[in-house]
């Protein structure tokens, strides 16, 4: 395969991943096709890699039509920056995804919506700078010109009440297939259900507006006294295993503890590697990057490591 000419004007000099000298060249064509699937931090990182990717990120509209702001940019995202970034979609923004963007205000959201009337997916989980009324205004603006919202996520916004939920639901596209969807934790990436049009509901047990989750059918039958159809509630009412989503009985809660304080059911707990000192595991998500997969036998968790140093002279 012929090597193409060097095309990078500012390759990153310090790269801990490169052990041997690397051969530079043009980026693979497929990377340009991946651009629309990247989150904002991915787009910025890729745009720094070389001039052709930088130009693609800067000048094309396609990568900017489904915006997903994620860590570590979420908490730093401000109204002005958001307006600039969304302007790259030239008014054709379809998905606005702001995950934990605590500095975004109702006013900022409204300005973005006004410039992008075609948004049909509005994801605002954890955007605590927004108010329910601000979200409702945004949804009203979007629906004003015949545009119908397909999906909205608002879990984490403070002071959500039942009446807000009612108003919001009236603006969402009604799809008979997804109407009675019973979410369990396994759905979607990172516990997000991509089937339900609204991510929160009214918990049948406490009547608050929360994320309501059902037990995965094959696991819950017979575990509890009440019938399967009632094993449905918010995280505060029914503790659930973070990995498989099954409800966890009170006795198991005390025995199947995790270092990261997440809840695990006994069967998931048994399968995870435990710290040599405290005999507790990390859940799968928190284990990434903390455990050396090819380590010899066990590991010592970060909480026990601190204490271990204190005991050296014992």
């Amino acid at each position: 395969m012929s090597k193409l000419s060097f095309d990078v004007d500012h390759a990153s000099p310090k790269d801990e991943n490169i052990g041997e000298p690397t051969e530079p060249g043009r980026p693979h064509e497929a990377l340009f096709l991946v651009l629309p699937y990247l989150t904002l931090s991915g787009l910025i990182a890729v745009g720094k890699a070389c001039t052709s990717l930088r130009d693609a990120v800067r000048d094309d509209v396609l990568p900017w039509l489904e915006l997903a702001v994620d860590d570590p940019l979420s908490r730093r995202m401000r109204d002005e920056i958001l307006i600039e970034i969304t302007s790259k979609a030239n008014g054709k923004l379809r998905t606005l995804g702001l995950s934990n963007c605590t500095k975004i205000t109702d006013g900022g959201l409204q300005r973005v919506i006004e410039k992008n009337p075609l948004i049909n997916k509005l994801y605002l989980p954890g955007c605590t700078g927004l108010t329910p009324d601000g979200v409702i205004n945004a949804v009203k603006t979007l629906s004003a010109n015949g545009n119908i919202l397909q999906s909205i996520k608002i879990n984490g916004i403070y002071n959500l009440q039942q009446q807000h939920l009612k108003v919001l639901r009236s603006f969402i596209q009604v799809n008979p297939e997804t109407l009675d969807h019973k979410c369990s934790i396994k759905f979607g990436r990172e516990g997000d259900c991509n089937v339900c049009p609204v991510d929160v509901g009214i918990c049948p047990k406490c009547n608050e507006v929360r994320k309501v989750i059902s037990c995965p059918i094959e696991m819950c039958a017979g575990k509890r006294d009440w019938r399967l159809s009632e094993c449905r509630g918010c995280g505060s009412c029914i503790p659930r295993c973070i990995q498989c989503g099954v409800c966890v009985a009170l006795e198991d809660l005390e025995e199947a503890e995790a270092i990261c304080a997440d809840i695990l059911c006994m069967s998931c707990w048994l399968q995870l590697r435990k710290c040599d000192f405290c005999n507790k595991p990390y859940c799968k998500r928190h284990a990434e990057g903390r455990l050396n997969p090819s380590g010899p036998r066990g590991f010592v968790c970060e909480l026990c490591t601190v204490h271990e140093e204190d005991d050296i002279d014992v």
Partner: protein
Amino acid sequence: MASSRKITLRSSDGESFEVEEAVAVESQTIKHMIEDDCADNAIPLPNVTSKILAKVIEYCKKHVDASKAEDRVNDEDLKAWDAAFIKVDQVDQATLFDLILAANYLNIKSLLDLTCQTVADMIKGNLFPVRNEWLNFTFSIANRELVLVCLTEWVAHRRLFCS
């Protein structure tokens, strides 16, 4: 009109694959070729090698079978199959990229979504390998500080990002 008519696809390296029409038309490109009556003999696919075409056919076949009433597979099982199909130690990076190009050329949206999202997730998780055996491209993944700096640079150097 659901027939068990067989379509022959020919890869760039001359290998022929016979598939059912229902599987072949998962590709919108091939579907249009058939509708335009260009499919009497084998359909040549000059942009797809036999290795990649075999994998594409495997994917299409599974998805067609999954939606047939008798073999109905629920969404979660199909997703698990997709995840295993695309798993990084099963599929090396060059193959993954070639699959992206093939899914784009053949216009198979679900395969394109699957492959592109896999690479996007690898970039996000900083798992993207940076080695010189990567044939024609290497790039470094910005670490967290660099990404944070980028956002500051966005504000300071808007011209870099806005044309």
